[in-house]
């Protein structure tokens, strides 16, 4: 009988929650306006906008068998009225360049040639340009970006928290050296036009990066930049070194400029945004104070722990006020590992930059995605920012992989 009560109660609360759900109103700086341009596509991960205005979305869960959705406005009234669906694989990465559409599954990268009308010539038969990338479920999504010089960059997340002998087991030591780094925990570079490349034909462009989800080529300085998801479980596994509050704040989520050959230091160190130091991981003998990995990079910026920076976009447009040009937008998916603290993130931030250097503090640019202020479980967030793109008119687009929305954000005050 108790079970029946419970089932009825759970069902009732869920229907009540759905019933009371209203569209969110995004909070933006003065002069900016957001319009919802796509809705209910499910797990919309990264997005790309063609110079002609077409919006491409990559889905992590297939919608009627399709993982790529293209929306087009055929009559110029500002509303998408045409939908093209293809790509029978789930994934995260999507990019446009050189007359092709590029998209990734969790193991491979495909490309689709576009014709003069900017339609994929053969949407059911893409060229597979990269295959056989590590996919063990954990940190498996592959983000991609192009440099305009013939290369595609892909993150290969480490299938591990901190390269312990037994992953996520309290007391298990870190592997020395961390052999996962041979095929994961970094950025790999491939040619954008060669068929069926594997690790052997690629270049390990950067290493020591646990799980990059946001990456973008910065055209102002011609270099790759990334945002990294830092490690979990400092408090849970080392309560004597990190109290619950510190475990929620550490380590920083990080933003790096990545020259070829760079090393982010994972799993041996993490970035402590308070001490502004690379601190040795406790699995490798650290005590919260000892430093390590002298050869590893320092980030451009450290954000509060566990916020999950899922997308990075350098602003190249002229629509927004001048201070935005060259700066970086970062979409934070929102945390799950800050308990018992309240979860954080679920917003898009702006980092002011010039010439590839950070020129000021980060600020929240777009907020209100959760639909209800603070949440203690990310499942309670109505929307979770995941992808970013810029349109031909300099507007930016934000995607949500909780309920499949896309918003267009414009600057309206001149």
């Amino acid at each position, binding site marked *: 009988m108790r*079970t029946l009560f419970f089932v009825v109660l759970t069902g009732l*609360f869920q229907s*009540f929650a759905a019933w009371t759900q209203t569209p969110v109103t995004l909070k933006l700086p003065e002069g900016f306006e957001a319009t919802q341009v796509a809705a209910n596509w499910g797990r919309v991960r990264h997005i790309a906008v063609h110079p002609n205005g077409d919006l491409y979305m990559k889905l992590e869960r297939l919608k009627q068998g399709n993982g790529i959705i293209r929306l087009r406005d055929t009559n110029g009234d500002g509303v998408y009225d045409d939908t093209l669906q293809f790509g029978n694989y789930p994934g995260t990465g999507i990019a446009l360049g050189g007359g092709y559409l590029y998209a990734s599954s969790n193991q491979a990268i495909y490309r689709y040639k576009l014709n003069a009308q900017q339609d994929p010539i053969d949407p059911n038969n893409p060229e597979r340009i990269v295959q056989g990338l590590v996919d063990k479920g954990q940190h498996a999504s592959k983000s991609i970006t192009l440099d305009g010089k013939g290369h595609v960059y892909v993150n290969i997340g480490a299938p591990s928290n901190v390269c312990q002998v037994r*992953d996520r087991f309290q007391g298990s030591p870190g592997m020395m050296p961390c052999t996962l780094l041979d095929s994961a925990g970094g950025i790999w570079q491939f040619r954008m036009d060669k068929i069926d490349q594997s690790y052997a034909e690629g270049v390990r462009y950067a290493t020591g990066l646990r799980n990059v989800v946001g990456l973008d080529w910065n055209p102002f300085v011609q270099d790759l930049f990334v945002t990294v998801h830092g490690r979990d479980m400092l408090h*849970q596994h080392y309560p004597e070194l990190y109290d619950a509050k510190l475990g929620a704040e550490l380590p920083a989520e990080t933003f790096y400029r990545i020259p070829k050959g760079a090393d982010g230091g994972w799993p041996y160190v993490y970035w402590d945004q308070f001490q502004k130091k690379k601190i040795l991981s406790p699995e490798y003998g650290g005590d919260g104070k000892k430093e390590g990995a002298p050869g590893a990079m320092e980030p451009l910026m450290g954000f509060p722990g566990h916020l999950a920076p899922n997308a990075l976009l350098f602003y190249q447009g002229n629509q927004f006020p001048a201070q935005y040009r060259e700066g970086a937008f970062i979409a934070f998916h929102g945390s799950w590992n800050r*308990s018992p603290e309240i979860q954080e993130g679920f917003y898009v931030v702006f980092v002011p930059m010039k010439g590839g250097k950070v020129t000021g503090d980060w600020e929240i640019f777009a907020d209100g995605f959760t639909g209800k202020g603070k949440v203690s*479980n990310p*499942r309670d967030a109505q929307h979770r920012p995941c992808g970013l793109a810029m349109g031909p008119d300099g507007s930016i687009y934000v995607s949500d992989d*909780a309920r499949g929305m896309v918003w267009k954000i414009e600057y309206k005050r001149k």
Partner: protein
Amino acid sequence: MSRVGIQLTFLVWGLVLVAEISAQQEKNPVLLRGAALYQKHCAACHQADGKGVTRLIPPLVGTDYVSGDKSRLIRILLQGLNEPIVVQEEEYYSPMASFQYLSDIESADVLTYIRTRFGGGASPVSVKEVQQQRKKLPK
């Protein structure tokens, strides 16, 4: 009665039920200890509300893994999980830590709490049941 009226009646009834269950829990030392253990060892991943995290951590609420076979549940706690698991039609990959270091009493308390709170009040887990499963663990 209108649909909203019926829903409100259900809601009030539900709230009374929740109040009644939590009043019982407040007095039950097993559940009190279980709640503290849950907060310390489980909530970081499975979340305070037991609903898990989309894509990453499976929910404890509304799954047969919690409300069903006790021996399987005990083995998962003691050994952890190192392979993908499908819960409510979604696959999860993050490994779960082993909690072999919890005592038999602690294991029974936390599992009883989890079954009571998230498993629709499924039957408690006894110390003896934990001991039986612990004996079967690979050495």
